[in-house]
């Protein structure tokens, strides 16, 4: 039996770094992880783990040697006129870096989960700028938390207990009793039920609500139609704004309620503007609840390597960025790529049907750990190595803090140490084919 402490969880953006595991033979015992985290740690010993490369030829799937799978993947990329490389979020920055360089080499488009997650939030930051803080800051100082379009009790279960609501911070010694919680959600979510104030707005009216709060902050009364549009009374908006103005340190945690609904980056932009202006009254910060493990990592790596946070196009040899044009959903819906390499992401499940249909028509290679709809339609499936369990590397936490992680066991495959390693092997083979 082998016991390890301070393991980083590779599931959601919280990057919890206090996981304890005991691995013995075909059993793993996990402490401190949430339900989702525990489920992923069980993958180490699961029976459905993808244990060997698979190749599809004329509709028949067969196991194949490692080298053949790498070769075939490289051929798919090298033969295409416009590949899409999709770096999912449940893998390291080191793997993402290889994917970005590979895209540059091929003149391909490269995107990540961010594009269907907080991509619009990143666009909002570009429009408005962002006042942010580390999770530790909010824990030590925060006496008001606003969950706007987010439901952490279901999507990031330990966010409230580790960072935002329950922990006792230096200036918040009484934990939950020192904090006020507001939730903005069209649904009476479990998070909303556990809040002091639930603003139950109508779907697709976040922009109007944010805009009305800014108007109130500027001393004007919002146009009366806003009550009917948002389903929220102006007096309730005033109550909310009063709570926000009178706190010592407020944090807004935006979720996909803002990024995925009608309005998208404009919602995010308005939220960032509201927070900027609240800083004239008190200390206020804002950040996104990043649902996936290292989804923040791609934004960071792509930004510092190539200047843009997601949806990059290298067809002209230099990076270009234009969401709606070079982003994965749009490229697939418009049938503007002709092959895909998908790393640690299940696009067939999580993209709209028009995109999944097209993915099923073009050559696809993927790297994954378990069978899923994307592995079902892929021509090549390469077994994935589980980051933070089987190899070391770097994740960025939801607050853009890099977390170096070390494994408690090693890759079960003799041909690869990590997904970064697999990506490098593919890159080498692509270079050889293109030479």
């Amino acid at each position, binding site marked *: 039996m082998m016991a390890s402490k301070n393991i980083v969880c590779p599931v959601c953006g919280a990057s919890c770094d206090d996981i304890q595991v005991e691995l013995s033979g075909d059993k793993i015992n996990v402490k401190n992880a949430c339900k989702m985290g525990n489920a992923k740690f069980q993958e180490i010993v699961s029976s459905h783990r993808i244990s060997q490369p698979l190749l599809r030829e004329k509709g028949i799937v067969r196991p194949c040697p490692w080298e053949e799978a790498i070769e075939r993947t490289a051929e798919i990329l090298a033969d295409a*006129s*416009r590949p899409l490389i999709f770096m999912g979020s449940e893998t390291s920055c080191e793997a993402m870096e290889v994917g970005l360089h590979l895209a540059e080499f*091929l*003149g*391909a488009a490269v995107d990540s989960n961010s594009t269907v997650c907080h991509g619009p939030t990143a666009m909002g930051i*570009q*429009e408005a700028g962002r006042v942010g803080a580390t999770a530790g800051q909010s824990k030590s100082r925060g006496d008001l938390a606003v969950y706007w379009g987010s439901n952490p009790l279901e999507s990031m279960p330990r966010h409230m207990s580790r960072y935002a609501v329950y922990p006792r911070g230096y200036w918040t010694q009484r934990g939950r009793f020192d904090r006020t919680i507001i939730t903005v959600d069209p649904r009476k979510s479990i998070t909303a039920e556990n809040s002091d104030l639930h603003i139950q707005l109508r779907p697709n*009216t976040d*922009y*109007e609500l*944010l*805009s*009305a709060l*800014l*108007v109130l902050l*500027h*001393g*004007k009364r*919002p*146009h009366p*139609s*806003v009550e009917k*549009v948002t389903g929220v009374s102006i007096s309730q908006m005033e109550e909310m704004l009063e709570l926000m103005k009178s706190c010592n340190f407020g944090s807004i945690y935006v979720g996909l309620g803002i990024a995925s609904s*009608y*309005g998208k980056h*404009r919602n995010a932009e*308005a939220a960032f*503007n509201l927070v900027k202006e609240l800083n004239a009254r008190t200390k206020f910060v804002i950040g996104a609840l990043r649902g996936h493990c290292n989804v923040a990592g791609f934004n960071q790596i792509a930004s510092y390597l190539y200047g843009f946070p997601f949806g990059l196009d*290298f*067809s*002209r*040899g230099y990076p270009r*960025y*234009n*969401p*709606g*044009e070079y982003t994965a959903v749009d490229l697939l819906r*418009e*049938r*503007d*790529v*002709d092959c895909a390499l998908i790393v640690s992401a299940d696009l067939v499940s999580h993209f709209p049907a028009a995109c999944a249909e097209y993915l099923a028509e073009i050559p696809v290679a993927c790297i994954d750990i378990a069978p899923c709809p994307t592995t079902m339609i892929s021509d090549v499936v390469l077994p994935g190595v589980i980051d933070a369990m089987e190899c070391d590397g770097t994740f960025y936490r939801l607050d853009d803090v890099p977390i170096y992680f070390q494994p408690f066991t090693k890759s079960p495959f003799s041909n690869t140490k990590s997904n970064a390693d697999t990506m490098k092997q593919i890159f080498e083979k692509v270079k050889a084919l293109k030479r």
Partner: protein
Amino acid sequence: MAEILLRPKGSIGIMVEAEVISPNIFAGKNKAEIEGLLVWQGPVQLPLGEFFDVDVRSAAGLPERARPEETSILIEGDISRVKRIGQGMKAGWIEIHGCAGMHLGAEMAGGSILVQGNAGSWAGMGMLGGLLHIAGSAGDHIGSAYRGSWRGMTGGTIQIDGNARSQLGGGLVGGKIVVAGNVENFCGIRQSGGLILVKGSAVRGTGAEMNGGTIAVCGAIKQFTPGFVETGREENPKLGDVQLEGWYAKFTGDYALGKNPKGSLYCREG
């Protein structure tokens, strides 16, 4: 005078970027030279002749002598997968008998473009002058600023006979955009000058974060922007050279942007 006729050879797979299709670049070139101009398809550059049959006609004199303002380009067929046509053009005429792809006439400074069908997103982005006439409907960001900029179109006219989607005239500084049909979201966002006239209706975000210039909407606005305050009513208002008919409520905003915004929004009554 030179007239260049382009006919797509077949359906186009991966989209093509063809900013070379512009009177400024075609002017003074013969058929072979035009066919040899390079366009992008994915990471590869290919001659224009791969995708189009090119025919050069001359009305008077040698086509090779024609200047840009004497050059017209006629495109017969669907080119909705060809982007950046007429990008940055300064003079001359482009007429498209079909639908056009993204970035049509982006940053154009002069001359005219007429599309008989629909135009993709970003048409007329950052336009400086000239006329862009879309007889069908248009996508997002028509006549808007490029991504990351708050200053969009500064001059010229965009006329859309059908509908436009979202972010029309974003960051508009000058010039005029007239939409005969409806618009969707955030029409005139961050507008600081110029005029947008929507003869149909709008969904939401009309004039959001606006600080100057004028928007008029003749139909209904589904989700009115909260930061606009009514300042009066006007009968038959005249906005620049556009004469409107009927009674309009006049609003100032967007007070979500600051305490003293100077944007004007006219909404037709009844």
